[in-house]
């Protein structure tokens, strides 16, 4: 594949901004959680882009493997986060019979 690194980064930025938009605007908690997953994937993509550029330029000292390894950790954290988030959604649904964000405003001060 013969693509500039910047194009990968641009794709990551666009996906991230889509995630931000969804995270900020949507009411449904499941869609909010999905937006977060989208942002995490955008972050992974930047790791990959950086690691790829590193490997191509043959920079000594350090390892191009740092990118994928961090991506792995991100996937791991994402999995944990999704699990907890979904559990919270279930708990909320039990309480309010709804998964809308507004229904969790009870701590309003």
């Amino acid at each position, binding site marked *: 594949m013969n693509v500039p690194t910047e194009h990968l980064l641009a794709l990551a930025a666009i996906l*991230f901004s889509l995630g931000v938009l969804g995270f900020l605007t949507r009411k449904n908690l499941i869609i909010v959680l999905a937006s977060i997953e989208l942002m995490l994937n955008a972050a992974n993509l930047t790791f990959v882009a950086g690691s790829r550029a590193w490997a191509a330029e043959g920079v000594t000292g350090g390892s191009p493997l740092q990118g994928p390894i961090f991506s792995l950790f991100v996937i791991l954290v994402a999995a944990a986060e999704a*699990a907890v988030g979904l559990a919270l959604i279930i708990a909320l649904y039990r309480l309010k019979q709804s998964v809308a964000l507004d229904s969790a405003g009870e701590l309003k001060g």
Partner: protein
Amino acid sequence: MAETLFYLLSIGAIACGAGVIRARMPLFSVLCLLGAFFCLSGIYLLAGFQFLAVTQLLVYAGAIMVLFLFVIMLLNLGDENEIARQSGIALSGKQLAVAGTSAGVFALIGVLTAGYGIAPVETASTRASGIDELQTLAVELFSRYMLPFEAASLLLLLTMIGVIAIAKRQRAGEPTHTGAGFPWTKEPLDEESTL
């Protein structure tokens, strides 16, 4: 050939991303997310990260996505009234402007970054097995990144316990929202008598 494929996959990922946030029903949103995962997995493969691509498919598309779908099915969110209640925009006009500007800034940064992409970078073709060759990755992970790796395993364990504690169904007779059911709440507070 590979370049064309990259740009096609990029367009697919963006389209799926837009679908995630535009979808009216959570089920459709999650399916779009699945599509985005697939497209990204393809890009990883093209960039020379086979193991990461496979992990993306297995963990994200396989495990996490199933979790999402499972929850949607469990809560029966396909109900029309429920969808009407939950869909749509949660913000006022002014707030929407702030949100749009914030997201726009990130998108703008992305577009501007793309403009710098003059010199193409060739994915190292000298390595037949790609960049994240499984063996070297494993060596790295179990030597240099040993501590984060172990910490991550601990995190997963804690997540497991936490999720069970949160999502556990309360026994009958227990008050529902006093923190009862959480392992650290030994004695549920008697709300009526204290308030």
